[in-house]
């Protein structure tokens, strides 16, 4: 019998570390696995019985751990309370797993478990009997496109790097995962690090490189640790190092921790950062495939792109191309978050609809609220309104809405999210993260942010919308890299689909989502107030007047709209407008 505890960062945060420790304390030897994707069910414990049967327990808290331990000892127990529900089990089964195939299944800290899943077979077979050109052709047949955001055909980049003769070439894995609200890449590295190593080896063989570098985001300590362990095991297992598999091909990989700059996800900035410089993008061409890290031809791929590669080489490009739509092949992993019931990772074939993901796998909106919009592509992307929920997931269809596929972040919003506030949120982000090289990006985003701040403070003016549109155009045109070129997108898409909200803020000084504080007024419903004075006790500015057991009222001149009274009132007597 084997006990397996899901221990990705998200599992640990939900309490998996304590669960693991409790099993150890009880004399068991639990194993670990990465994130299976069902973050909303964490902590998750799988039991593999000697009979071959398997049981999955979810939301395992302290009591749940006790019950499972009793169950394992054959004592009377209540594990049924923690057994995964049919619907949740179905959601996991319904997905088509390629990039996530091993995540939440194998122990990421044990190379043998990866090998048992046919790991490293693809690279061995390639080194033994295929040419780099054949590998590139297989990837071409698969139709794999970059999962880092731009969706550029992977084979094309590999081919370009192959064509450029040089004494040294580099394979760089982009694990900077800059989109705030996305965690696919983290989960893949934490859950299946050897797949990334093998993907990089295949890419390295294809372009003729002997060195790989993984650029990992600084906020992902566990991913770095797991990758370090995996690299060490791969080296001692003879999968990395000199003269691999009895040939003269050598390949090794090192890790470089990022230092917290969104723009470093852009490939030329990433290279500058690897070289120890400020991470400022430069003009392309020359492309990294021509002149990359240390001036040598370099190929940069996203984590998920690389995770697909071993699968493609094992199963053939055709099998990958059989999934998806005319212009987008294979599957895509999405990180579902925000106001969604089943937050976590899902992998679906291209061509599924947004509603399939949000309502099918995602279980719909939290607390039975109404679905308002979904944000895709992070600060470079846009908001897709609920009406367009039947849009299919492929590069072209998503781009037509004004949003983008992006790297896979899907932040779902309900009626309480203010779209002007959301646009402001993204502009705050891009304004802070602009590297400052291009005037339009550096100053333009600042001016846009000021306008959005004005609007959400209730000081919006006539002409502000037009000014935002004008600035958007100028920034798109005047910026060198995609950070600036796409920075206005969150504003443009919210203007396109939620223009009325802007007008409400500017003309009527109203925030219909009730989220912009300066536009809210608080009052107390006389017929519901009992005069208990709980609100008064919670008010930080003593802005609530009234004698005990008499109807209270809000003094609007001192109110700072913090909302503490609303939360404290047991009778729901406080009205926000």
């Amino acid at each position, binding site marked *: 019998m084997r006990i397996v505890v899901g221990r990705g960062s*998200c599992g640990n945060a939900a309490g998996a570390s304590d669960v693991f420790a409790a099993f150890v304390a009880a004399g068991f030897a639990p194993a670990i696995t990465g994130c299976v994707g069902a973050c909303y069910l964490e902590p998750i414990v799988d039991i593999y019985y000697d009979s071959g049967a398997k049981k999955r327990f979810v939301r395992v808290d302290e009591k749940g751990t006790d019950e499972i331990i009793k169950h394992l000892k054959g004592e009377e127990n209540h594990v049924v309370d923690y057994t995964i529900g049919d619907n949740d089990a179905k959601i996991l089964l319904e997905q088509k797993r390629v990039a996530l195939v091993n995540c939440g299944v194998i122990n990421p800290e044990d190379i043998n478990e990866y090998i048992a899943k046919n790991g490293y077979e693809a690279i061995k077979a390639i080194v033994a009997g295929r040419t780099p050109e054949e590998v590139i052709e297989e990837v071409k047949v698969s139709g794999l496109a970059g999962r880092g955001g731009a969706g550029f055909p992977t084979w094309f980049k590999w081919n370009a790097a192959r064509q450029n003769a040089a004494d040294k070439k580099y394979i760089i894995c982009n694990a900077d995962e800059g989109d*705030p*609200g996305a965690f696919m890449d983290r989960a893949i590295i934490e859950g299946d690090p050897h797949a990334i190593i093998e993907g990089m080896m295949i890419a390295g063989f294809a372009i003729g490189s002997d060195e790989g570098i993984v650029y990992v985001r*600084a*906020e992902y300590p566990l991913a770095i640790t797991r990758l370090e362990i995996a690299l060490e095991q791969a080296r001692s297992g003879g999968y990395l190092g000199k003269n691999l598999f009895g040939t003269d091909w050598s390949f090794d990989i090192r890790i470089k921790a990022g230092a917290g700059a969104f723009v470093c996800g852009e490939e030329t900035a990433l290279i500058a950062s690897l070289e*120890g410089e400020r991470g400022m993008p430069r003009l392309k061409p020359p492309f990294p495939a021509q002149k990359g890290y240390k001036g040598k031809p370099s190929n940069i791929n996203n984590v998920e792109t690389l995770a697909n590669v071993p699968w493609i080489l094992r199963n053939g490009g055709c099998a990958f191309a059989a999934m998806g739509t005319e212009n987008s092949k294979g599957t895509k992993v999405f990180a579902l*978050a925000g106001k969604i019931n089943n937050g976590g990772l899902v992998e679906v074939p291209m061509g599924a609809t947004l509603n399939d993901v949000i309502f099918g796998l995602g279980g719909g909106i939290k607390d039975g609220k109404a679905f308002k919009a979904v*944000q895709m592509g992070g600060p470079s992307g846009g908001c897709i309104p609920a009406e367009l929920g039947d849009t299919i997931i492929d590069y072209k269809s998503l781009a037509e809405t004004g949003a983008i596929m992006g790297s896979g972040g899907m932040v779902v919003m309900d009626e309480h999210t203010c779209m002007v506030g959301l646009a402001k949120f993204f502009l705050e982000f891009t304004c802070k993260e602009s590297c400052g090289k291009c005037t339009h990006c550096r100053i333009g985003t600042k001016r846009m942010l000021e306008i959005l701040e004005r609007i959400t403070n209730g000081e919006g003016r006539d002409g502000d919308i037009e000014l935002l549109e004008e600035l958007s155009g100028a920034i798109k045109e005047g910026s060198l890299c995609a950070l600036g070129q796409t920075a206005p997108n969150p504003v443009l898409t919210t203007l396109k689909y939620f223009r009325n909200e802007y007008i409400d803020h500017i003309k009527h000084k109203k925030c219909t989502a009730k989220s912009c504080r300066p536009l809210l007024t608080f009052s107390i419903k006389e017929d519901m107030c009992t005069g208990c004075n709980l609100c008064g006790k919670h008010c930080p500015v003593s802005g609530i007047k009234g004698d005990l057991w008499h109807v209270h009222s809000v003094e609007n001149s001192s109110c700072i709209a913090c909302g503490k009274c609303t939360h404290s009132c047991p009778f729901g007597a406080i009205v926000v407008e």
Partner: protein
Amino acid sequence: MDIDLKALDGVFAVAGRDEGALIAVLQGAQDLYGYLPMEVLERIADEMGLAVAKVLGVTTFYAQFRTKPVGKNLILLCQGTACHVNDSAMVEEVISEHLGIAEGDITDDGLFSYNNVACLGCCSLAPAMMIGDKVYGNLDREKIEKILDDIREVALCE
């Protein structure tokens, strides 16, 4: 505070001294001192044969690097999209109220500081924060106050 610049030798031994190593050196130095005081930056410039301006330029470019000291427990408060939508503003309010500090300040007992960061990658548990290497998710007022009080209690016992 006296800064032991000798300790930097260990950082160079791991990261090396060529120009490409600058970020790794700064990361190592920050791990060592908790922040990057001017003396340390000058010493790094000296050792690596770089202009101080260059070292400072790189230091200030990246959000990870701090030129001011922080409390013993640095709270990284997520301001990513998912956390924003799930009211990370409340989290910041509770932390700053409970500890009586603003972003970047240190509590009087030297135990806490907090910084806003973009996404900890635990978006499905939003709102989230990270202290040390541990991520805390699904935060609400009570939970945040308890986490902070527990850390303070442990620290006071030590």
